[in-house]
């Protein structure tokens, strides 16, 4: 299995994602360039974090027009796995690969801190190895992470298991104190209907090494490995 990590101008977690896949998941990982139309035969695409195009206009709004996004949309349509992390989640929403969108944090400040997530759905290619209700700790670092969608969409996502992660407190409850950015219904990550495209604001690639405090991000990438065995 081969994983591609897209570099947009302003991506700054692309190198972290490449190293994460190589060092901790032990898969081949290649960089993909925003101006190209070539996915280099990758099986999985990571849209990494950062500030693509400076987040000017609106986070992810310009990146969706990058040449490589046409190929990624086609890959997703074929059922190819795509994960959008932080800015990558914003891009995926702007590109219509995922429902909803991400707005400025309700308190208007950037937030960098560890958060606790509860796994809400194991019916995605990135969570199939996780247990429903499991609590994962990993960092967030964003200014535009308030997940939003209209009430009907939210109800549909809840009903069809497309809410993948929720911000919760240490005991697993989705309290407002545990919500770092004002996301509706404490939603931290969602998937498309088929569970092949997942986006989340927290950074699983920063939670793979015990030296850095948490290895809870591993389960997302281990789920990919299960895909190769399937």
């Amino acid at each position, binding site marked *: 299995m081969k994983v591609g990590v897209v570099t947009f101008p302003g991506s700054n977690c692309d190198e*972290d994602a490449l190293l994460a896949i190589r060092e901790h998941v032990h898969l081949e990982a290649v960089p993909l360039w925003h101006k190209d139309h070539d996915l280099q035969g990758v099986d999985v695409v990571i849209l990494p974090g950062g500030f693509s195009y400076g987040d000017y206009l609106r986070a992810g709004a310009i990146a969706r027009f990058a040449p490589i996004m046409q190929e990624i949309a086609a890959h997703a349509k074929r059922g190819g796995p795509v994960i959008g992390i932080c800015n990558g989640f914003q891009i995926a929403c702007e590109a219509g690969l995922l429902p909803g969108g991400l707005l400025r944090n309700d308190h208007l400040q950037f*937030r960098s801190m560890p958060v606790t997530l509860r796994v809400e759905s194991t019916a995605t290619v990135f969570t199939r190895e996780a247990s429903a209700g499991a609590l994962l700790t990993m960092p967030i*670092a964003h200014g535009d992470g308030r997940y939003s969608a209209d009430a009907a969409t939210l109800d549909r996502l809840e009903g069809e298991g497309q809410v993948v992660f929720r911000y919760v407190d240490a005991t697993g409850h989705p309290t407002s104190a545990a919500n770092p950015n004002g996301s509706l219904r404490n939603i931290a990550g969602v998937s498309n209907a088929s569970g092949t495209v997942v986006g989340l604001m927290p950074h699983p690639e920063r939670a793979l090494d015990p030296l850095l405090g948490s290895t809870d991000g591993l389960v997302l990438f281990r789920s990919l490995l299960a895909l190769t065995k399937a």
Partner: protein
Amino acid sequence: MTAQRTPPSASHGVRPRPGDPTITPALVAEHGLTMDEYGRLERMLERTPTFTELGIISALWSEHCSYKHSRPVLKTLPTQAPWVLQGPGENAGVISIGDGLAIAFKIESHNHPSAVEPYQGAATGVGGILRDVFTMGARPIAMLNSLRFGSLETPRVRYLVAGVVKGIGDYGNCVGIPTVAGDVMFDPAYEGNPLVNAMCVGLLREEELIRAKAEGVGNSIIAVGARTGRDGIHGASFASEDLSEENEAKRPRVQVGDPFTEKLLLEASLELIRSGHIVAIQDMGAAGLTSSSAEMAERGDVGVTIDTTKVPVRETGMTPYEILLSESQERMLVVATRGHEAEVQAILAKWDLVAEVIGEVIAEPVYRVTEGDRIVAEFPGTRLVTDCPQYHPEARESEEAIARRTRDVAAIAPKGEEADPAWTLERLLQSPTIASKHWIHRQYDSTVRTGTVSGPGAGDAAVIRIRGTTKAIAVKTDCNGRYVYLDPRVGGRIAVAEAARNVACTGATPRAITNCLNFGNPKKPEVFFQFREAVYGMGDACRALETPVTGGNVSLYNENPQGAVYPTPTIGMVGVLDDAAHATRMTFTTPGDAIVLLGENTDELGGSEYLSWVHGVVAGAPPHCDLDRERALIGTILEAIRAGQVRSAHDCSEGGLAVAIAESCMGDRARPTGARLDLTAWGALPLRALLFGEAQGRIVVSTAHAEAVLAIAQRHGVPARVIGQVTAADQGLTIAAAQGRCTSTIDRLATAYHEAIPRAMARAAAETVTETAGGTR
């Protein structure tokens, strides 16, 4: 050399440019030059300068660029060690950390811009220091900030704090460099003159080190990155004068940052350096194109010629004067090997950036600027920067500082509430200087680049692992300006010693420093005295601790009509851990562990946060700093950590022993512990000195093997004693001393410590601040 590339020769002559102002004494004064300095310029040129030449010299001979008041004193600092690869004089200092790897690091001030425009002032400070590091060929891996503000009780200060923190965060977060450490202090002495010092740390392979030295006659000088606009003209001169209400009108001199372009420039520059197509690269920082080109020429001992019509501009009708002095951000000057210009342009184009050939390295020893065919400036020689005036100002200690230092602070009567030491402890934990800075840190991305082993607030210094090795580095900034004010020599020593101690508490060997010297107007004898003595003190400590100075920055004129800031020689220290797994944090982890105090308690209250915060008194001699003892203490803690005997280590600084213990209990609010202490061994000391005095050379350690730690301390000749035990959080904090008892719940202490700054800043959100930089209108 081909004929068409031969630059216009000097015989063409320099003539005033039509439309440029005539040189008058008033114009000279407006450029910040004295008539003596102007006379020196005329003698150098053997004629009247043009307006463009006057502008160039006003920038190059500004304090910011020339160090004309500070250089002789700075030369006394130690700069050598076997591991120093690059000392002062380059964009950044560089030390080897073994395995063919090196660390480039530098600290720089952006005080004046931040005083008038906190958001952009702080943001562009971050941008500038990043460029200084990546132009050495290093990839930035960590940012630090040392900030000083006035009292958080005033709306203006809350506005400055909010703006500076957002500016730092927005820039560093966007570029993707973790902001991992720093220090923040509050004191009315910084009212109106906040200090914003940014430090960047980068990693490189030793063989990729590149210097900003123009070389190779015929090589092309290329402007790279953002286009040049009219912003920031005379920023360097602005930073070289006192702040006044008029400075508000100089807001346009503050540049505007674009971190997105910076990120592209970072990637393009590193690619350029690794490509082998260039011989030198330098940031166009203070005094922009002028100082970058003049400094590169001087280092290479070559001449240069630059054509301002070739410089990519973002607005029309810019004069050579404006193009040369613009401080538009995110620009670089590159010297490319002749014939490789197209390759350079291709790399920049990949990152959607422009690169234009604007000049050439020439054999003739001259600094020449043309506007097309017309020569608008021409200076003989290649030492335009160092051939500046040098001053040896008078130095005399102020009577006020002497009076304050010699005041008998033991005679200051305790307040009634102090009968319960827990009241004093809680109050100190609420002091913004001591209180948790989590409100600030949570606005900085500290985990990007997946290297942060120990981030902001977790340990006495931040620890960043070095990928591909077992190593890590520890970084920290420090300086207690109050100590330096009360006794500059001792204060200078303490600044270095405390930074070294902090780095050592994480398990790292202190290796080298960069410094940012923030002082007032050097023409005042009392300010120059502070400067000279503080630098001597730093030198004492750097020699004793083997941490040479690899570079830094001098920021003078940090004063306004209300007076100067505390003399603040901020130290940025870098240390190395051979094994990242040894990284040690400051908080207690395990009930039952013994608490060991390394070092000795004393009867010293002078210059303490206790006196300042509880009594409103800045007086007394700062604590004694014995550098031999500091060295032995560092040896002890490093050996104990490497032997695996240390569970936590935290030095005693502002607030003294009681605050250090309280922080070790509840610094990590999610995992608090309690502690039970017995300090009866120090029955001869006044209780407040024992609990809140700031004696130097002390570290609080928690350990499962107290005997082993005591034995190591004994071998190093360091006093050490078991002073208590870590307990469960619900046991609270209990300190028994012969003179009294201090008991508190952990919850109360944590509330005081963690909620002080958020509570103050919550008020800022509701305030509209329209005051000017002077503080009043």
